């Protein structure tokens, strides 16, 4: 060893020598430990080992996914596009930033808090929301909307209900207090998420181009400030915790779950934005999220090509006797690191004084490249900052598809009985009343989705829509989340592609032109070759979709090790796409408004069953191939729909997805004020194929347009001109009946639409309000 060891740590407990056992409990492999020794040219101290373990954890380093993520397009291909140019690229900062025109931009990102939510659903979900909000305002943006992608086990056990209730109330608690509207998102219930729920939280903020802030430490001698809440022992090592599989012990091990204080975060948000509004006051700023003080110090230093030195005695602490290991690894919430120009200390202190928050100088930017941490004046860690952020291990491997999946894809429904008049009623009821398909009103009426007075399409439609009043300029944004894990299980490449294509379709149905995308890759243990295969293939599918629709990925999150002793979750590459709506008149909802509309189906009658909710709920099968995606056809059809919407010929539009055509039609009848009847007339040619494929298949590229009588001919003429496949499918009525016939003469089934709506509308509330009645 060439370099002398560091002096003894003030806390003698930390002066233990590093054993292979300690290395392993820090989640580091022996070869990774060897690399650390080589970087330091000596043995690390325990504090340093902790620092490396969190920075090289999957959560912070993306060591198993980084090479794959390079497949994503990170810039807009169309250089002449009016809007959508990437101003801050994925991975550069806490969140990506894209142009929305007139000097304004948006910062947005989705991030997971799956593991904490599995252990402590309320705090886990709440701090997930808190963390993503900080990522956004760190960029200098005012957060204006939230959404979530949630996955739970089937809603039929006490434990799943506890997790679901806890997660929803945690999100509600944090977001409502922050005063940022939550526009819903997507929620699925499937047994593969039992014990490992997924809680992905998205925040979007708005800012001027000139106000983008960076997380870089520069200017030797510039002071480094710690602002916000004091540091406690909560959330110790959360980033490493998130990088392991969940076991029985992790259920009992609650220390890595942070506690959130949304009031503190609201103050921090306002104080930070006020500080950022002072010209030149902020040199660099970074949120203390995963890996807390460790991550924010080494990342800012590394981005700024500088060194950084901090003294832990100056860090505000809410518990006594904390040692350097604890302070550096704490994931206490609602804290930020700010670098300001030397000599302007009183200005930052004044702002934080106003908001009654800590703003304490804890160190300064130094010459060189070291991150030096002292406590009581003694150096407790001395590490090249870049080695923590850029020199972490990177693993690539050759994935292998799990055995048996190919056979599942080759499955055909030939042995399966088709639906007929006698089974249609029970089949449809099973679908419409399953929590994955049923109304999620129980969830979103607990979220404040109207604060900021900009929401114009509330949760429950294909996309949420907000108006932004920006100093006189108005912008209208739409946002939607998507991912069908069953498709990804059967065909991860196509499943990834479908995530993007379907999400784009949702935006198009709301009248929006998609701009950009953020993704949250939720997978199992990447060291298992079959899991790695699904990760790699899904990413390829996502990347293909992004390129097809020219949607740059501006960042996101990778959550691996989503496994319980029962196995891995279905691959779940969640995407969230933001779009822009040109004018208020183009805002389109999924529900009809008049009762005399005709529903026109674009894309043809569905003809595939693979991976459908129908196969799952009626036949208990997870088989077949994921539906085919024809990207060129979809792009063309999307343009057509946007054209018809801007021409004012579309009353409502809805994408055909989970549950298939019959469910999609029904959902369009459930208006805000009224419930309409409808007569579906299927073409006689349907009798030649399978009825279940037509009614319940989840073929891609299907969109329903509700058109008023006076515009029907024009829409068909335009479709024919554009070579878009369009057919009349149903006409609305005021008689309260929902019926299907094949051809004009062969009646199949009639329901009372009010009964269907009530089934769809109340099932989740019914289940949740009977929580104490035990297993159902």
């Amino acid at each position: 060893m060439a370099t002398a060891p560091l002096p003894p740590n003030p806390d003698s407990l930390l002066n233990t020598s590093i054993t292979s056992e300690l290395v392993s409990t820090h989640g580091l492999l022996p070869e990774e430990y060897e690399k650390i020794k080589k970087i330091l040219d000596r043995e690390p101290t325990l504090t340093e080992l902790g620092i490396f373990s969190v920075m090289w954890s999957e959560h912070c380093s993306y060591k198993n996914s980084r090479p794959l993520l390079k497949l994503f397009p990170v810039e807009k291909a169309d250089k002449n596009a009016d809007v959508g140019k990437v101003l801050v690229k994925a991975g550069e900062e806490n969140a990506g930033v894209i142009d929305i025109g007139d000097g304004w931009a948006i910062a947005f990102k989705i991030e997971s808090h799956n593991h904490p939510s599995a252990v402590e659903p309320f705090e886990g979900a709440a701090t997930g929301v808190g963390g993503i909000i900080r990522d956004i305002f760190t960029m200098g943006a005012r957060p204006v909307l939230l959404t979530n992608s949630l996955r739970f086990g089937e809603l039929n056990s006490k434990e799943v209900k506890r997790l679901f209730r806890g997660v929803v109330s945690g999100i509600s608690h944090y977001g409502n207090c922050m005063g940022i509207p939550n526009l819903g998102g997507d929620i699925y219930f499937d047994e593969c998420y039992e014990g490992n729920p997924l809680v992905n939280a998205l925040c979007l903020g708005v800012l001027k181009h000139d106000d983008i802030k960076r997380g870089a430490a520069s200017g030797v001698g510039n002071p480094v400030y710690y602002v916000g809440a004091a540091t406690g022992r909560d959330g110790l090592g959360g980033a490493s915790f998130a990088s392991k599989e969940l076991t029985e012990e992790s259920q009992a091990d609650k220390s890595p779950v942070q506690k959130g204080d949304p009031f503190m975060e609201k103050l921090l948000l306002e104080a930070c934005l006020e500080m950022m509004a002072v010209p030149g006051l902020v040199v660099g700023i970074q949120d203390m999220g995963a890996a807390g003080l460790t991550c924010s110090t080494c990342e800012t230093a590394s981005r700024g090509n500088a060194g950084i030195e901090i003294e832990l005695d100056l860090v505000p602490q809410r518990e006594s006797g904390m040692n350097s290991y604890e302070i550096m690894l704490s994931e206490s919430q609602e804290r930020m690191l700010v670098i300001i120009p030397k000599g302007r200390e009183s200005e930052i202190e004044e702002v934080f004084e106003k908001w009654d928050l800590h703003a304490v100088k804890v160190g300064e930017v130094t010459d060189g490249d070291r991150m030096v941490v002292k406590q009581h004046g003694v150096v407790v860690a001395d590490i090249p900052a870049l080695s923590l952020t850029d020199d972490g291990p990177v693993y690539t491997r050759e994935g292998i598809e799990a055995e048996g999946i190919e056979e599942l894809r080759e499955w055909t429904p030939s042995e399966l009985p088709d639906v007929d008049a006698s089974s249609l009623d029970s089949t449809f009821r099973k679908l419409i009343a399953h929590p994955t398909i049923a109304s999620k009103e129980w969830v979103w009426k607990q979220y404040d989705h109207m604060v900021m007075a900009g929401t114009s399409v509330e949760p429950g439609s294909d996309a949420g829509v907000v108006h932004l009043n920006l100093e006189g300029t108005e912008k209208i944004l739409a946002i939607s989340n998507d991912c069908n894990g069953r498709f990804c299980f059967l065909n991860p490449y196509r499943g990834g592609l479908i995530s993007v294509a379907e999400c784009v379709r949702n935006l198009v149905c709301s009248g929006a032109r998609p701009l950009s995308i953020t993704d949250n890759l939720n997978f199992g243990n990447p060291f298992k070759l079959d899991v790695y295969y699904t990760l790699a293939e899904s990413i390829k599918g996502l990347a293909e979709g992004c390129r097809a629709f020219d949607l740059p990925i501006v960042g996101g999150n990778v959550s691996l090790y989503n496994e319980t002793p029962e196995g891995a979750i279905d691959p779940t590459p969640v995407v969230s796409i933001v779009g822009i709506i040109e004018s208020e008149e183009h805002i389109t909802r999924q529900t009809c408004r008049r009762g005399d509309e005709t529903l026109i189906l674009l894309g043809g009658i569905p003809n595939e069953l693979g991976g459908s909710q129908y196969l799952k709920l009626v036949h208990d099968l997870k088989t077949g191939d994921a539906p085919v995606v024809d990207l060129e056809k979809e792009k063309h059809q999307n343009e057509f729909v946007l054209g018809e919407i801007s021409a004012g010929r579309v009353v409502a539009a809805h994408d055909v997805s989970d549950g298939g055509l019959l469910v999609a039609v029904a959902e369009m009848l459930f208006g805000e004020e009224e419930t309409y009847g409808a007569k579906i007339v299927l073409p006689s040619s349907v009798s030649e194929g399978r009825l279940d494929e037509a009614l319940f298949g989840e073929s891609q590229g299907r969109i329903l347009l509700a058109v008023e009588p006076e515009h029907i001919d024009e829409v068909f003429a335009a479709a024919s001109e554009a070579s878009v496949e369009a057919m009349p499918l149903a006409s609305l009525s005021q008689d309260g009946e929902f019926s299907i016939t094949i051809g004009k003469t062969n009646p199949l089934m009639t329901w009372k639409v009010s009964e269907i709506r009530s089934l769809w509308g109340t099932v989740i509330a019914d289940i949740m309000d009977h929580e104490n009645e035990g297993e159902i």
Partner: protein
Amino acid sequence: MKVAVIQFPGSNCDQDVYHSFARGIGVPTEMIWHKDEQLGEVDLVVIPGGFSYGDYLRCGAIARFSPIMKAVGEYADRGGLILGICNGFQILCEAGLLPGALIRNNCLEYRCMTPHLLIQDSTDTFNRNKIGQIIRLPIGHGEGNYRIDDEGLDRLERNEQILLRYCDEQGNLTEEANPNGSVNNIAGIRNERGNIFGMMPHPDRAFERFHPSMDGLPVMKAVLATKETVTVPI
């Protein structure tokens, strides 16, 4: 005419109130920080919604001790016009400027929705003639369950101090139409003198074409118009 909006730490509808008055109605509107001690020359003080002091202890219980609240109390004593919306209503109750208290919703969950409200003929300006019979305004709260003792309730009813009640589409005051369990479906009240108004529903979320309704405008105008009609000598 000038409106002042008080900002507490944790207020989060302050901007909405600002825009609803400044842009929606078109009255000059300004912000006042809770650490200030003077209100200045204003015609209406609005205490906005949000989570002042994180709703710690009880909603509104800490905000009432903010420096500005002394000035608000004096302003109220002089007959000055005050409107508390959502958390602002809770603060006014905690400060003793309005009777009663707001406790946890009886469903034990936060509720964000746009219920129907029956307008009561409460004053010369706040009544069905000026506002309409049944309106819709958004709500967003976890603690909007209005409670008061029997004697107080009797006095509210007798003096026509109730402004709004939760109702169904037809105006029936049913239990199903009551989102939080408030006694007598009460959604908003005024003080006896008629210069202090408090309501859980948000007129500040109902003033743009794209909002669920635009019924916030007549409600805000009715409160503002009270300025002209307060007969109590100042």
